[in-house]
């Protein structure tokens, strides 16, 4: 009786082992079903979705104009203090003072990519880019100025 149980156990063990081996063997001879991607090599044809949250960027048009009014809604919405906006007053041709951004400072090292600033922006001035390779050699390079030098606010954006 003991011998019978023993042989049954061995038979079951070998059978379950072979069942598993069959599965792994199947993928061994069907390399086309393997979905692994070779990351640094496929960098050129990486297609990240449109909504992917990489880092905050400010979009500028061909006239070097952006849509940021300096309302600091993003600064208030950010949970980590990632954004700091320094504003200045421009003198309009009519001689009136108008608030405009001087520097839009973005601390990438503090950012958690939660998208709350983009949601808060009333003029869609900032958006999330698809860039995800953020590593740099010097930490200070992670503090970025988002508005390009010499840029100004687009006409008609209030």
């Amino acid at each position, binding site marked *: 009786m003991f011998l019978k149980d023993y042989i049954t156990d061995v038979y079951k063990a070998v059978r379950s082992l072979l069942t598993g081996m069959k599965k792994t063997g199947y993928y061994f001879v069907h390399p086309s079903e393997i979905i692994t991607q070779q990351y640094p090599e496929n960098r050129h044809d990486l297609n990240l979705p449109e*909504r992917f949250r990489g880092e905050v960027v400010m979009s500028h048009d061909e006239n070097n104009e952006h849509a940021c009014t300096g309302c600091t809604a993003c600064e208030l919405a950010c949970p980590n203090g990632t954004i700091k906006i320094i504003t200045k007053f421009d003198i309009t041709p009519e001689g009136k003072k108008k608030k405009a951004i001087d520097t839009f400072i973005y601390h990438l090292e503090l950012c958690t990519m939660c998208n*709350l600033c983009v949601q808060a922006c009333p003029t869609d001035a900032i958006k999330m880019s698809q860039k995800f390779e953020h590593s740099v050699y010097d930490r200070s390079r992670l503090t970025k100025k988002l508005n390009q030098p010499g840029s100004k606010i687009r006409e008609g954006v209030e």
Partner: protein
Amino acid sequence: MYTQTEIIKDTTQLNSNGNEGELVINVGPQHPATHGVLHLVITLNGETIKKIEPHLGYIHRSIEKMCESLTYRQFIYVTSRMDYLSAHINNLACALCVEKGMQIEVPERAQVIRILMSELTRIASHELWVGAMAMDLGAFTPFFYTFREREVINDIMEQTCGARLTMNYMVPGGTMYDLHPDFQNRVKAFIIQFTSKVTELEDLIANNIIFQNRTKGVGVLSAEDAISYGCTGPVARGSGVSCDIRKIQPYSGYEKVSFEEVLEPAGDSYARYLIRIREMYQSISIIEQLIDNIPEGDFQAKTKAVLKLPKGEFYTRVETARGELGVYIVSEGGTTPYRIKFRSPGFSNLSALNHMVKGSKIGDLMATMGTLDLVIPDIDR
């Protein structure tokens, strides 16, 4: 709680007291089988476990205190970092609690999207668990097969929510974006892939004689003990305790879908494995019911720019992949919460570990602890 030096002193005391064969060993905080920085102080008598004491706090980030300085819109993203494998459901719990306080009516479309996302998260979490559990027991191959399916869900999440793990997709009043136009097709493709490939797990894991011998009758937790230790989720359901919040206290429209609460009476590690496999089938059935019936309409209710909860206390609970998550907010009427408390499932499930492994061999420790599905940042917060 011991400090590191006290533990060492303890070890030497035991040896100098002449308790020969009694040994205190430390597993973790850096140990691959604890899936994070969990530190277990194990008292052994030979190979038999006499006592096991988890030491926590290695990844404590004081999330509850941090939330007190964030507004009701901002604090939701932090909770993705608690139980990062069911980040959607954590965010949902917080959003539900704020909505309860503000009495915001969530549009039906948003509710259905929330259920779909929660169930996809549950499948992804259980898939990862199956792979990690097999790896704990020495089988490395199933890990890749489960990650293949999980990867599809992560891609779907990336397309609709913009991130793969810490989505921050639930906002008070609905969801951050509408569904991606391609969402339905991709989820349907995933269902076909999942149902054809999930049988591989049976061949590789469940029918494997080594897996069965190592998990059947190991780490038995009776129904009474599961209740008294406050276990929830698959751990309690593996002992036959009915505790699914989706059934007991339906939220976000779960009362409209039909699904079965899976129960296994055995209470051993194998039962907890079966529970998770069968729960994935239930999640698939929920998704199948909803994917073609997503109602039209808004994905977000109109809310004020600044949310202010009325003075009072609010509590909601949801079923995450690991068990019951409770969110308790005390509001003083301002823009930030006065106090936030999270009742995390992992903490209570871990507390039953000592009872489950006491008296068993040390080789069974990982086969038991793996089935608790511990996520250490969820325990420490």
